[in-house]
């Protein structure tokens, strides 16, 4: 078991062998998710949308994890803070904008489910949940299905550290341990479950300390370091794919914004604390690393920002212009008709 990770300012690229093109793609994915997320906050403050739950600050672990997967083959069962993860799986700013505006053609739910409940059969994203941690038993079930079929598909499930207090977390990982399921469970430990700090969720210092009780591997990683996250996730996914069973990966990170658009984090933490963590921002750290390696300069950063801004602008405009779903969409058939095939 790794000891407590010192959240550093550097990037640890030990054992990571990604070419320049891929490194820049990771950076672009992080920026793209961040700007989409920031725009959503603005739209909420403008009164244009009802609600937003943000993934800002979590891009390191999410992009690192997604790129460690065989995307389009492996399953992901994500939670509501996983915008960057979902986008790395193939979900787009346009999809998200349709979702937050509740417009017709929204691809994951036909605009019937809340935003940030990422689900796409085509992208291998199983349904995601609002009651926290319910995705863990479901992901264990998906992993069981893959194992029963003799596939080498891996299921990755994500949740926050607050969700690990739920019974679902224990039942799901216990099941994964008993049957040595090809599952990787990522806990994005951002220290707060809405306002309740982690020391009031658990009496052990690390979420991953619980791995031995399930008989599965545990790992702790600096979730604000995209390359370290990629490495740890690659190891866990490889273990799962090769029949070595499940891993509980704890990614240490921080949520520099409120839990959602509906709470004020000034009531439960100091501005000093938030500012300190902003210095460890996963995008700024990766940007500094890429600069040091000569892969990124001011001009290239601007070019990426402009490209992302254009995509987000266009996504927003298209979603605002799109029609609302017709009233009869509320009556979407609950049951699959007998004669309908997939």
């Amino acid at each position, binding site marked *: 078991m790794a000891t407590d990770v010192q959240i550093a300012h550097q990037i640890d690229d030990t054992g990571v062998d990604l070419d320049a093109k891929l490194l820049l793609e990771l950076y672009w994915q992080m920026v793209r998710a961040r700007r989409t997320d920031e725009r959503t906050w603005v739209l909420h403050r403008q009164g244009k949308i009802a609600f937003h739950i943000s993934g800002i600050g979590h891009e390191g672990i999410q992009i690192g994890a997604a790129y460690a997967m065989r995307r389009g083959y492996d*399953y992901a*069962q994500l939670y509501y803070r996983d915008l960057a993860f979902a986008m790395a799986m193939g979900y787009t700013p346009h999809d998200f904008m349709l979702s937050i505006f509740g417009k017709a053609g929204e*691809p*994951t*739910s*036909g605009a*019937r*489910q809340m935003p940030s*409940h990422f*689900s*796409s*059969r085509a992208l291998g994203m*199983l*349904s995601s*949940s*609002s*009651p926290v941690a*319910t995705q*863990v*038993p*479901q*992901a*264990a*079930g*998906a*992993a*069981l*299905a*893959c194992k*029963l*079929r003799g596939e080498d598909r891996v*299921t990755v499930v994500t949740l926050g550290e607050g969700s690990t207090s739920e*019974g*679902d977390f224990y*039942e*799901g990982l*216990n*099941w994964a341990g*008993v049957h040595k399921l090809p599952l990787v469970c990522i806990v994005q430990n951002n220290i707060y479950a809405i306002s309740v700090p982690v020391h009031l969720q658990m009496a052990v210092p690390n979420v991953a300390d619980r791995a031995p009780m399930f008989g599965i591997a545990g790992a702790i990683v600096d979730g604000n370091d995209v390359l370290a996250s990629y490495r740890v996730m690659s190891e866990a996914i490889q273990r799962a794919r090769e029949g070595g069973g499940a891993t509980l990966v704890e990614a240490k990170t921080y949520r520099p914004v409120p839990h959602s658009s509906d709470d004020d984090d000034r009531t439960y933490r100091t501005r000093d604390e938030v500012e300190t963590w902003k210095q460890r921002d996963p995008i700024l750290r990766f940007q500094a690393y890429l600069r040091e390696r000569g892969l990124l300069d001011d001009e290239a950063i601007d070019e990426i920002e402009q490209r992302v801004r254009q995509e987000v602008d266009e996504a927003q405009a298209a979603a605002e212009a799109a029609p609302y779903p017709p009233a009869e969409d509320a009556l*979407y*058939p*609950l*049951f*699959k008709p*007998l004669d*309908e095939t*997939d």
Partner: protein
Amino acid sequence: MADRPITIREALSAALREEMQRDERVFIMGEEVGVWGGTYAVTRGFLDEFGAKRVRDTPIAEMVIAGSAVGAAMAGLRPVAELMTINFAFLALDAIVNHMAKVRYMFNGQFTVPMVIRTTTGGGKQLGATHSHAPEVLFAHFPGMYVAVPGTAYDAKGMLKASIRDDNPVLFVEHSTMLQRRSPVPDDPDFVLPIGKSDIKREGDDVTIVTFGKGLEWSMAAAEQLEKDGIEAEIVDLRWLRPLDLEPVFESFKKTNRCVVVEESLPMFSVGAEVAAQLQNEMFDYMDAPVKRVAAMDNPLPYSREIELMALPDAQKIVAAVKEVV
């Protein structure tokens, strides 16, 4: 092929076995389903026949039994999960209500959840208030899952096979005191009953008794007594609480103009309440008497034998209710 009298237990077992032989995506999991052969011996012999991959003993963890079945179903298998009693399904309520029943609707039909949760229901065995209620109506409250409540071996087999073959989720509720009841059942491996069709179990012109599950047994006994008094009861067995098929009830009511609803569930917000509401909406002009309801007492079910039975419906209570309306 000839029908042959078998028990509900044998009917359930045959249905499961035939469907597992027919479709290799079907597998079963639950507490005690493997080595022990099921709490009610429905899966006895399955572990040897189908192997541990398809017959999976689970930890005592209802949430993961139901939740992982949802995941496995979304990933393309057809799990039949067993919960020891429906009273323990409360521990898995979120997986059942928020996920099993809603995934297709919430995610635009991208995922269907072709799974069955088999569970037992009912009192009368002195198992106390946390084992003995018949709360299947509670699950029928939520749109998105079928709720099966068979009362005969014939229905149990045909309905379970239909549930496993259907692409939608089903809560399949078996009555724990009726597993030894015997009736003729076809051997035909393709004997399947339609989902959501109720059934006339006894014909009569004087009163319509609407019931399901254990209520069928009590109602049939009551009808025999009523017959001696010259009252012919028509008994409609709902068989499914979702989809709820009240057409035969309406048709019967046009003839009898009187109705008694019999159920083992608690009386408040019950099947009786639903049937009475729909009858007064659809059949107001045919009504000659108020709709009567026979249900369990509005209490947690007591343990001691005599007071437990007192708290449950029985044939005498049904006879009395019928005599109030004819």
